[in-house]
């Protein structure tokens, strides 16, 4: 398993496509807590996969002022189709070219399979990692850790 960046480290900045014609930079989100959810691939074959689950819990994240960004190595068109199919209300970042660059910066890349780990980061308003968690890749970690980390952030 990977060695992901731990709490206290500055969150590496990135600028990445979230739609075919739109980019998102982490630094743009400064001032708000950010949840980065790395996951292996779009289209997991279960209802209530990790992204669909976070989509449901999104209002709870928003109540805590947080912004959620999903990250996988899938391309923008794949993300777009996936987001549309699952009615996702939050951006999916395409860590596609150079492949896995963001995941590597966070220590959350699986070199053998060429996909992201299932890894979670809560970044505070100043851009510092407040909490991180690496889940076994086959286990959807749920959202309890994220909610707890957000609730523990200084107001």
């Amino acid at each position, binding site marked *: 398993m990977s060695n992901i960046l731990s709490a206290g480290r500055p969150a590496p900045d990135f600028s990445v496509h979230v739609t075919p014609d739109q980019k998102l930079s982490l630094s743009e989100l400064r001032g708000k807590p950010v949840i980065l959810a790395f996951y292996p691939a779009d289209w997991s074959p279960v209802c*209530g996969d990790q992204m669909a689950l976070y989509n*449901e819990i999104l209002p709870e994240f928003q109540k805590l002022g947080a912004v959620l960004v999903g990250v996988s190595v899938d391309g923008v068109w794949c993300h777009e189709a996936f987001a549309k199919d699952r009615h996702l209300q939050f951006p999916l970042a395409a860590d596609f070219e150079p492949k896995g660059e963001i995941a590597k910066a966070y220590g959350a890349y699986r070199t053998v399979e060429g996909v992201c780990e299932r890894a979670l980061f809560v970044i505070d308003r100043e851009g510092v990692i407040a909490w991180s968690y690496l889940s076994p890749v086959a286990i959807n970690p749920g959202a309890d850790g994220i909610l707890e980390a957000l609730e523990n952030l200084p107001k």
Partner: protein
Amino acid sequence: MSKLSIEVNADDHIQGNSTAECSLVEYGDYECPHCGTAYPIVKRVQKHFGKRLSFVFRNFPLTQIHPWAEPAAEVAEFAGVHGKFWEMHDLLFENQENLGETLFLNLADKLDLSTAQLQTAKASQTYRSRVRADFSGGARSGVNGTPTFFINGRRHNGPFDFDSLSEAIELALR
């Protein structure tokens, strides 16, 4: 290790012996086909363990992908207030393919519940806060899809076929 953030309490729908050595809690969605698959399995597990097991069902409707999940949960809660939660829970799963307003009214009628009261409750969203509270508690407990089971308060990460679930319960009973 994810744990139940809200312990089993008097507000829960509990089936079986409430002081049983082992408690099984399911967070489920009436429209989720996997919960539909789990429904008869849970019944078998309950029968197998008898008095040693209690079973609690809490709502975790995935509303973005299952449009009837939340209304169905409210119908079950309505029935619950009239002492017929489990009857309605079972009927909803048994008729999972046909969820919708017509079915809800038919099932209420079948259980001798007032369809007028049901319609009022649904229109005024009387049971919505209860369903949302279940969901929120589930999110804080590490529910990671539906169904998610907790055995003695700890999230069961394995599959939910009869053998896997019973084995996990046996372990908790040891």
